[in-house]
């Protein structure tokens, strides 16, 4: 039968066959490509997460020296209570009789999903007590950072006595209750 076909017919058949193969490849290939892109992005996201967790030992040690204790933030009321409680305990441990801590309204934090809550405290105490307090402050697992710190000699006759004003911050989780790691 193929002998009866002219050269033109054979050429048309060849082109048709090539076209069919190209269409088949395109259909299969596009599905395959989509699966590949999805798998690739999934892999990239997982790898990025791994990179965050899998920090090398030196960097991890550096982080631990700055943040030796950390608790995942809770919602505002709970976090505020825990933070103030721990802060009061730390003042007490340092022998500082502080005035009641003032909680300022939480404000927006650049970190998505969290607000920043500021707690202000003040006290009249010895300079050595301030040092003792500062040395232990990092152990507060709710502390984010010191926003404001002010010490001033209150009485020239008592050089060791200082007025301390301190504002510290903590994260509060927005919305539902936070997890507990």
């Amino acid at each position, binding site marked *: 039968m193929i002998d009866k076909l002219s050269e033109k017919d054979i050429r048309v058949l060849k082109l048709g066959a090539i076209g069919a193969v190209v269409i088949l490849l395109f259909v299969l290939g596009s599905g*395959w490509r989509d*699966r*590949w892109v999805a*798998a*690739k992005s*999934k*892999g990239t996201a*997982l*790898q990025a*997460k*791994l990179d*965050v*967790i899998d*920090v090398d030992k030196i960097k991890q040690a*550096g*982080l631990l020296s*700055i*943040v030796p204790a*950390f608790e*995942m*933030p809770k919602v505002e009321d709970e976090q505020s209570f825990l933070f103030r409680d721990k802060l009061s305990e730390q003042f007490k441990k340092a022998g500082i009789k502080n005035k009641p801590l003032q909680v300022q309204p939480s404000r927006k*934090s*650049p*970190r998505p999903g*969290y607000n*920043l809550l500021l707690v202000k405290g003040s006290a009249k105490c010895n300079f050595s007590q301030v*040092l003792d307090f*500062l*040395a232990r*402050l*990092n152990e507060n697992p709710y*502390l*984010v*950072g*010191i*926003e*404001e*710190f*002010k*010490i*001033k*000699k209150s009485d020239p006759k008592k*050089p060791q006595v200082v007025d301390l004003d301190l504002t510290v*911050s903590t*994260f509060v989780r927005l919305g539902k209750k936070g*997890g507990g*790691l």
Partner: protein
Amino acid sequence: MNNHKIDVEKPKSVVAIVKDDDQLRGVELQDKNGTVELLWTRRSEGAQADWGQFAAVCGVSPEQTGPENDRRVIVGYTSAGTIFHYAMVPAVGEKEIASMVELQAESRLPLPADQIELAWRTEVVEDGQIGITMAVARKVQLKTFAESVRSLRPAKILLDCEGIVQAWRTIFSGDETKAVVLSMGSGNTQVCLVEHGRLSNAVVLDVGREDFLREAERELSETNERFSQDLRSVLELFGCSQQSDLPIFLLSDGDAFHVSIVSSLRMAQLNARVALPEVHRLQADIELDAEELYEYRASIGLGLMAFEEGDKELNIFSGVYRPAEKKEKAHWLYSSKLAGALAAFMLLLLAFVAYAVDVKSPEAIKKRLQASVSDMDMDLLVERQQLIRAVAQERPDMLHLLKLVNDSGERGISLSSLQFKKGQVVTISGQVGNNDQLRDFEKKLQETKGIEEVNCTPTTDSKGKKITFKMNFHYKNFTQKKVKRTSLGRP
């Protein structure tokens, strides 16, 4: 020896063209099952014919006659400007022989070595001596000739006297071990010494057929005499003057004129004979006669040489003309199609492997995490780690700041306050005993790592004894406004 080997593969068909008496004469020979057959003979019309035009007349185009085809073109170069020399040298190594040949060639032609072309070949060895046939010619002449025939893409350019010798052996039935072959043209005569079937020396005499034909009866005997004398001189040059029985063959088509010349030579005590072509020695598609064979003797001879095994011809053009070489059939491994197919396969394999890795990697990472962090929520872990990092960036070390300030001051400096607020400069105030102390304090602070842009404002105490001061500076990046705004945003 020839400087390089040229195509020795036997062609199926050879077109040989020679310029003879200002006319181009071409023949085509074809190998048919081991028998060489003459297909056609052609000559150019008129004198000073153009090689390219004549090739076109002969149906020769470069596309048909390239090295990739079985049809070759052989071009004959007239030996008139070529000096031949035969010498016996000790049968030593090829390098030593080459050195001796070069020295002899330079002595034969009073031209610098860079202006001549030399071809040589070894002949038979006798009593520890080896015969060397040399051909020397001016390079510039050869280059000019090679340029004039380059459009034909000839496979070889050979000396026409070699064609004469080949023709004598083949169609004139020359089988003597040693003989002199005379090929007379209109204005000259080629005298070739043939030994063991090959040209060993040659000279071109400037006496030809026209010289004999135009002379009157009385002057003809003078021409005959001069020709005999010239021939004797040539025999002397060939070293054969004592060999009175050395056969001298005058190639002829049977013309009575040739017979008369031979007679005169014989009368001069030379062993001259007429050599007639034998038509049956060459198969032909066309009707052949002795005259035609005689006329095309040089072309036929050169054509026949192309069918012979080996490359022992004197290729004097080896330094000035290199024929296009046949592309050797590459091994199948070097096939571009195979390389393309392999490349395509490797590309597919690469794509497949990349796909498999990308698909399997997330699963592998998950498995690894499940094994290492057991039931912990990975997302929570990531978030915790990111928060710890953010906190670390937001947490200034006040103890460290106090230590830096304290270490910079000497005894006698009394600090009264220190104020730190994120995004603002750190301010300290106090008292010093004198200006030097204050300057030193400021300088040391400025040199302390982590403290920048120290500004000091001294004011004299109202009592006048001590100097009070206010100083502000930046501490790390906590007091820079832009840092405060962006640091928490970092993961």
